[in-house]
């Protein structure tokens, strides 16, 4: 009997991923204009768990910094980064295209148009903004799917991607028009497009959490199906998989999750395409492992990038989208160069 490890049983990667994520989160909570020790962080968090003790020794100011400012922001980073990376991995699998990212099906253009309209009508602080961005993203992706699947003769994957290009071009044109007509909104719109994780307490975390949870759970449950899909539609069908239905479910879950996080964070690029590829280079291409690792990896990466954005040029903040690409791209290039035989 041979003893073979396969991707299902590689428990140790799960543990390492969880440790990296928790470590990054602790870093995000501890580091800042005011450095706070792990003990204070622990005491503050446990004091909010009923019956788990009190934060008696921690100053009110530190408690407020941890609980009201840093923790919601760090958790939002985990949810946004995790969702973008997981959705990116799922898109790359379902479309068998290494260049697929969470914004593939016109999600970015749709959310951009929604956000621009909301800012033009209601101003930058508008409570309408996340709702409009979410609706724009979902409408754009639905439009892409309707157009792409309508001509289902031939290659559905290619026709969906091309349909996404057409929808995105159209919506971007509309967005540019609205923006030009309301040029005083330019700065607000631009800041949204660059992406940010600034929060006003817990409301953003609360609003995206259900979407991220449901979308990630669906993608996690279907991760083996993504491996079957890697064989192509015909071989997947021959293995008994209902290809069209599964593809629709995966695309819908990834798109909804992406739309929800984009609505609060803006268009943070890079995470959804590079984190899954980085993990592929390190751990292999099986989605059974890649989907869960992408959530951990994307979450940790975005929290670390946000930490850097906060402390690089105090007291100002760098746009997080700039950080993700500026630090992420060279790191990715380094891995690509130093792992022989993977870049082909």
């Amino acid at each position: 009997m041979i003893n073979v490890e396969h991707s299902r049983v590689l428990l140790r990667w799960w543990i390492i991923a969880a440790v990296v994520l928790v470590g990054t989160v602790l870093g995000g909570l501890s580091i800042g204009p005011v450095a706070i020790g792990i003990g204070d962080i622990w005491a503050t968090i446990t004091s909010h768990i009923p019956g788990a003790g009190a934060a008696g020794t921690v100053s009110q100011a530190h408690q407020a910094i941890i609980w009201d400012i840093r923790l919601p922001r760090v958790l939002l980073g985990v949810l946004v980064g995790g969702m973008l990376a997981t959705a990116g991995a799922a898109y790359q699998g379902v479309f068998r295209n290494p260049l697929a990212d969470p914004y593939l099906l016109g999600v970015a253009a749709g959310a951009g148009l929604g956000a621009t309209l909301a800012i033009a009508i209601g101003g930058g602080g508008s409570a309408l903004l996340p709702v409009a961005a979410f609706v724009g993203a979902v409408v754009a992706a639905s439009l892409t799917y309707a157009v792409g699947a309508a001509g289902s003769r031939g290659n559905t994957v290619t026709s969906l991607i091309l349909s996404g290009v057409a929808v995105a071009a159209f919506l971007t044109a509309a967005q540019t028009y609205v923006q030009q007509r309301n040029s005083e909104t330019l700065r607000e719109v631009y800041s949204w497009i660059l992406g940010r994780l600034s929060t006003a307490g817990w409301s953003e975390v609360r609003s995206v959490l259900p979407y991220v949870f449901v979308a990630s759970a669906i993608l996690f449950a279907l991760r083996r199906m993504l491996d079957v899909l890697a064989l192509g539609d015909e071989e997947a069908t021959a293995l008994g998989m209902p290809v069209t239905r599964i593809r629709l479910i995966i695309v819908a879950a990834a798109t909804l999750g992406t739309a929800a996080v984009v609505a609060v964070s803006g268009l943070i690029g890079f995470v959804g395409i590079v984190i899954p590829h980085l993990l592929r280079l390190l751990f292999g291409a099986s989605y059974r492992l890649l989907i869960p690792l992408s959530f951990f990896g994307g979450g940790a990466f975005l929290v670390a990038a946000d930490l850097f954005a906060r402390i690089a040029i105090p007291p100002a903040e760098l746009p997080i989208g700039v950080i993700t690409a500026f630090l992420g791209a060279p790191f990715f290039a380094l891995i690509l160069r130093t792992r022989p035989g993977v870049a082909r």
Partner: protein
Amino acid sequence: MIRVQDLSASYDGLAVFEGISLTVMAGEWVVIIGPNGAGKSTLLRSVAGLADMPGLVTIDGRSIKGLSARHRAQQIAYVPQAPALPAGMTVIDYVLLGRTPYLSILGSESKHDLATVRKTLELLAVSHLAKRGVATLSGGEAQRVVLARAIAQEPQILLLDEPTSALDLGKQQETMQIIDDLRSERNLTVVSTMHDLTLAGQFADRLLLLNGGAILAEGTPGEVLTSETIARHYGANVRVIQDPEGGVIVVPTRHAPTSGAVDQAR
């Protein structure tokens, strides 16, 4: 037993074949031969339930259109001519995909599935490749691994599109022998398409010649592989030699075809 009745196929309104009927008995190996574009692959894909063509295909009396994709996949394994070998996927993960028809959509492999796959890897002598990436294998290794995935499906019927086309002579013989051993060991029904007529004749119980939209010859290799038939349908000059050890050998020769011998039957 596979029964195909009155099956037709067309692409963009252009008929590939029309009204084809054939029967393959359980445990039989039937090789479909015919020139390029005759519709061999389409016929195979129709039997696999992958091409929705007018006509009836039944397995043990049940129409494959009435079967769910899962049940169909539990009975029929299909290997295309150029199977996808995804970069970065290991051999063990690849062969485990053969267990898909036995898992629920949300499920993952059980210990039993893993044991089945390990036995299959041993059966095809590819256990030592388990951790290799499928995209890094040589042609012969890849063919064994792809067969292992099909066998892990535990099918009754094996449909193979050009199983030897990418292999050197030795690997061609080896692959055919493996398929034949699997067939007798598991009482598999095998339908394959092939271009190498001698090799096809050495292993097939029966040959079917598909050309011009119809089955034009059917029978034992000795009956189907005649120089006239091959000249007419392939436009090839061959000499068919009786092998003293049984069977026939098709040898290409270099002579201009006698005029009229090439009939582009369409």
